[in-house]
């Protein structure tokens, strides 16, 4: 009897709390999404319709001219391709090298392994904002200013990736590698044909995480790239804003295109995005 009383009490309480929960979540989702929707819709408005009062969500009339007009001002295709190229190179390089190093730290016994692993982990605490001045000088010594090399190479390995891949690869049974060794497979072959395919879930999460950060890269190219045709989209967009700051529909049009790749990727591979973030929590 007592039991049932508390149960009904709880279910009414749950009913009320879930109404509150849904309300708050709808509010949060609106706050997160509506600014973005507003930006996309406004990119299809004519300049004089930008700030009409009261707010009008849908463009009236729909105007698609802002896109070609923005493209006529700057070579955004080039910026876009630069961003794509640099981000893909960083992602591929980072996932490959971090898996390789993660494999070494997970499955090989060698002198100084713990020490080297600590050296790798210590770089977690060195953000670019702290090291950018000397990193700029280093890259300058390599004569890598205004090159793709300068944008890519410093970022094709990082501690988070190594840590992540090592954790995952440790879970792969040793017997699989031993068996391959007995079959006469080369050590590199074991990596490419056994270890790497088996660590795919971690590798996908890491690639998405890396790609997101590479696509977002701003301060670094700002520092080392001054040549127009090497600029990534982020820097191109920032410069466009400082020169054409009030031609809002064009600015928002380019911003919309800039967010497109990650948005598409996100809706296709949401699970891996979330996993990448969760795993980034492990590094602390």
């Amino acid at each position, binding site marked *: 009897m007592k039991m049932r009383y508390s149960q009904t009490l709880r279910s009414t309480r749950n009913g009320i709390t879930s109404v509150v929960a849904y309300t708050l979540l709808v509010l949060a989702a609106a706050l997160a999404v509506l600014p973005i929707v507003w930006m996309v819709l406004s990119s299809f408005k004519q300049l004089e319709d930008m700030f009409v009062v009261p707010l009008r969500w849908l463009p009236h009339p729909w105007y698609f001219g802002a896109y070609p007009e923005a493209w006529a001002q700057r070579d955004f295709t080039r910026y876009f391709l630069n961003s794509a190229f640099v981000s893909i190179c960083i992602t591929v390089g980072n996932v490959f090298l971090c898996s390789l190093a993660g494999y070494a730290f997970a499955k090989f016994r060698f002198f100084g392994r713990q020490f080297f692993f600590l050296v790798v982990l210590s770089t977690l605490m060195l953000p670019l904002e702290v090291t950018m001045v000397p990193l700029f000088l280093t890259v300058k010594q390599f004569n890598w200013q205004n090159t793709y090399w300068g944008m890519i190479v410093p970022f094709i390995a990082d501690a988070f990736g190594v840590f992540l891949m090592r954790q995952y690869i440790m879970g792969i049974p040793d017997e699989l590698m031993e068996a391959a060794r007995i079959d006469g497979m080369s050590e590199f072959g074991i990596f490419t044909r056994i270890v790497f395919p088996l660590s795919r879930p971690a590798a996908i999460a890491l690639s998405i995480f890396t790609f997101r950060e590479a696509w977002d890269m*701003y*301060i670094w190219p700002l520092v080392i790239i001054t040549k127009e045709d090497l600029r990534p989209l982020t820097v191109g967009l920032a410069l466009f804003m400082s020169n054409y700051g009030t031609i809002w529909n064009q600015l928002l049009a380019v911003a919309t295109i800039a*967010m497109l790749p990650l948005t598409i990727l996100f809706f296709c591979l949401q699970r891996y995005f979330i996993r990448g973030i969760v795993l980034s929590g492990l590094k602390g």
Partner: protein
Amino acid sequence: MDITAKPVLVKRTRSRFQLGLSARRAAWGYIFMLPTLLILLTFRIIPMIQAARLSFTNYDLFSAPTFTGLDNYIDLAKDPVFHQSLKASVLYVTGSVVPVWIISLLLAMLILRVRWFRGVFRALIFLPVIMSQVVVAILWRFLYFQDGAVNTILGYFGVPSVRWLTTPTTALISIIIIGIWRAAPYFMVIFTAGLQAIPEEYYEAGKIDGTNALSEFRYLTLPLLKPTSLLVMVMSVTVALKVFAVPQLLTNGGPAGATEVVPLQIYKTAFEFFKMGRASAMSILLFAIMMIFSIVQIRLFSEAGE
């Protein structure tokens, strides 16, 4: 079966080569680790050491650096512009980080409470995280504009139009709001994982004892969530201390230095005024602040738990 038997067999027949074999294996370990190690040494560790070294010089990119001892640090200690920058960073961090903790934990708990559309809510709320910082800056500059959506909506409630980005206090608040908007969903995901890792039995036990929602949160969820909370605290402070693109693009540090956070001042000092030595000293101080914040948080947190 078969697979597990094989290595034993190998050990027996090749025992004479065991040493050679393990040395060769070790060599492969080094080879696989080496590229990553070299890159991290060249582009992270050596630059950090170099930053420490440069911070004792007056290097200006054009003439050879001369050793000036602690001059850069003494100058910074006396420089009101740098003080202002520290103040901007501290205000930004304290202003954004506490709301981020509360909102992200609340969102995580809400997401786990609802039964329907959980994935949809999570995906939608997560969207700001995948926007690149430059896009975020443009988007919010549009919203904060004199005749923009924020002022229009406030106008519906009779609030007079605010000049968001052109007075010191509102500019800082504007940037803090953007920081919260972008960081809260990120940490919501981490809190969600942390909450899901708490075994259900604890709550069952709590229910039998007749705890209410508030005490359940206070005496069960919070203590059990401690590792996750600590992580979120340290990460969110570090992220907030690194903020650069949004203040640079929205206000370029203005008005009157109100939003010139430390990374932005480092950037200007190094790449607009070419004072590499001074910028390095600022970088070292920023690094020290990050470390102190992290250590203090870990300390406070482990004491509070006892």
